[in-house]
């Protein structure tokens, strides 16, 4: 005879997997995320500055060199008009052109002083990329001019100015292998967001499912034979299994999509995303831990409130800790082994996301991983203890939402 917990989990699982919402979230979340990342990568690759500007300088040599740099440089494809030397009317002419939008702006280089003074005037306040491009180009031009003044030949200057490519290797299990930081980073990034969505979505689903049973008053019927703990565990397992199914589908799809054939067919060969086996194991493991923690909290909230609307007010309780992980995402990615990253990744509410992230982009010491798992299990145990107590009383309370002292009193009921 199957146990009650199993029966409840099975019902929950089957009912959820059959819903349209499941199909939609399963398909849509990775599509949106993959699409978004692909878009931003491709976009940033092609985002050379393409403004049309005028360069005004007494020094024709300098102006022409700058024009060349801006039109054919490493990251710019600008159109540059050179006005050299300027006549007294030039300034009013370029101002008029800028106002008429014939050009995006003009660059006035004043070489009368020893260090040339450069002013870029445009109608946009915040065209950071153009400004950066100009300043980079300007520095290279100045350096080239300087080197020329010191008597170096054009060939020597060219070699000196070549950009330097840095290759990255990583040591894993004592072996040095070539690594593609971009690839590793993207893989981790995608899974970080999938983890975020999965924990959030399924945690809230637990709360929603409890509220549904509360509003439809199914609880009393169930409680005639089933213990509240069995109901709660059944629900967590059921919804958790739905989450794992969804993740399973995502991982399978990711492996399929990252296979060479499809990637090159899409024309994104340079940004292929690669998932390693330990990465997937860590992902599933930390999802389970994260799900149990957050759904435990969500179950307590679900038992306390009476409607979906009331649940919305408590969304923050779940969203905030996850949002914290987003805020520290930058520092952790840029320095995954720093003390800050280690401490953050050991905070149980952040562990599933951050420890997972660290594991996928760096080599995390085994004792860090063990510590994170132990801490999470302890926290889950404590959360479950509270939740079970709140749940037992809360599910039979209809009407008014309990106050904090009332909830504390619930903990004492046995």
């Amino acid at each position: 005879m199957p146990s009650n917990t199993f029966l409840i989990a099975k019902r929950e699982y089957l009912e959820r997997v059959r819903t349209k919402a499941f199909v939609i979230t399963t398909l849509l979340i990775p599509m949106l995320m993959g699409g978004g990342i692909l878009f931003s990568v491709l976009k940033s690759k092609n985002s050379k500055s393409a403004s049309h500007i005028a360069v005004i300088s007494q020094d024709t040599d300098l102006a022409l060199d700058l024009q060349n740099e801006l039109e054919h440089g490493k990251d710019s494809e600008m159109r540059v008009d050179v006005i050299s030397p300027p006549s007294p009317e030039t300034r009013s002419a370029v101002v008029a052109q800028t106002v008429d939008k014939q050009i995006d702006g003009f660059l006035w280089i004043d070489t009368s002083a020893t260090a040339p003074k450069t002013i870029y005037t445009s109608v946009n306040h915040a065209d950071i990329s153009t400004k950066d491009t100009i300043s980079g180009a300007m520095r290279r031009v100045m350096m080239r001019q300087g080197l020329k003044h010191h008597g170096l030949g054009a060939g020597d200057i060219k070699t000196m100015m070549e950009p330097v490519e840095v290759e990255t290797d990583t040591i894993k299990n004592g072996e040095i292998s070539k690594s593609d930081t971009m690839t590793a980073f993207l893989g981790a990034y995608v899974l970080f967001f999938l983890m975020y969505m999965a924990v959030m979505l399924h945690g809230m689903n637990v709360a929603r499912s409890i509220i549904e049973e509360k509003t439809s008053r199914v609880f009393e019927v169930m409680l005639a034979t089933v213990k509240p703990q069995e109901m709660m565990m059944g629900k967590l397992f059921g919804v958790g299994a739905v989450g794992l199914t969804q993740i399973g589908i995502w991982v399978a799809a990711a492996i399929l999509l990252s296979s060479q054939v499809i990637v090159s067919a899409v024309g994104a060969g340079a940004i292929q995303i690669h998932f390693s086996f330990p990465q997937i194991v860590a992902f599933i493991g930390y999802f389970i831990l994260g799900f149990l923690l957050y759904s435990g909290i969500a179950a307590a909230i679900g038992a306390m409130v009476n409607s979906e609307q009331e649940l919305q007010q408590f969304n923050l309780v779940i969203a905030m800790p996850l949002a914290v992980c987003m805020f520290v995402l930058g520092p952790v990615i840029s320095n995954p082994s720093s003390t800050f990253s280690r401490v953050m990744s050991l905070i149980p509410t952040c562990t599933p996301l951050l420890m997972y992230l660290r594991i996928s982009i760096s080599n995390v010491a085994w004792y860090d991983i063990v510590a994170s798992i132990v801490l999470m299990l302890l926290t889950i145990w404590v959360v479950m203890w509270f939740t079970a107590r709140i749940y037992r009383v809360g599910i039979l309370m209809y009407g008014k939402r309990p106050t904090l002292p009332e909830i504390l009193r619930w903990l004492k009921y046995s």
Partner: protein
Amino acid sequence: MAIVQLQHVRKAYDTKVAVDDLSFSIEPGSMFGLLGPNGSGKTSSIRMMIGITVPDSGTVELFGQPFDRKNLQRVGYLPEERGLYKKMKVIDQLIFLGQLHGLDIATATKRAHVWCERMEITEAIPKKTEELSKGMQQKIQFIATLLHEPDLIIMDEPFSGLDPVNSTLLMDTLLDLRKQGRTILFSTHRMDQVEKLCDAICLISRGKIVLSGGMREIKSSYPRNRVQITFEGDSTFLRNPGIEEYKLYNSSAEIKLRDESAAQQILAQAITGAQVTRFEVMEPTLEEIFIEEVGAGGKVDA
């Protein structure tokens, strides 16, 4: 052996005492009515019988044994707040609830079909609960309570919200079940049904027992001082000094006597001025007893 035995049960929620010193027992094969006004502690008592809550003090025994969860498989419970999974198909729902009560899938399926036929709702079987009318949902709920053939059936306000047709269907089913030897407890505040159906009752008010025992004993403990008379013509006989109070309707009156012996004298007086088609001397109805007892208790408490 009593099927249900409560002894000195007390349950308080914070400062509110829901049930206080409640004791009664239910004999096997009987139909027991748990009566009381709204908020008197009926649902609280029932919840303790099936282990949803635990009494603060006192004992609850089911089937002659101290409370044990495994005995709950022999109990069918219909809560006052009906609830089904809205999105679930009726048949899946019945099977699921049947499984929770220890049935295997095949048995649960078979019985679900038999019951749906008996309740005349076979067309609902493949539908989702939310597509059904309220009356149909009630029937489904009712079937879910009985699917595992419980020895003890507990129904909290089973007749509330039922139309007369379904009410009668439910009543007939309950009588059938009693004939099969099942024990039935239901709570209600509809006295006419209790009077028709119950072998024994327990009337509680504000968590305390006001009245308890076999239906016949309770009724016979009251004097036969009620008269129902249907007549046409002069109603001056109602001023007879033997009448404590009366209610006069179109062509009938309900009379409460000061003394049982006054009845014959009143009848004699009545036929002199009116044509009497019906004259009945009887005990007070359960409804009157209910109002009297609960009302009196209320005055004392307030």
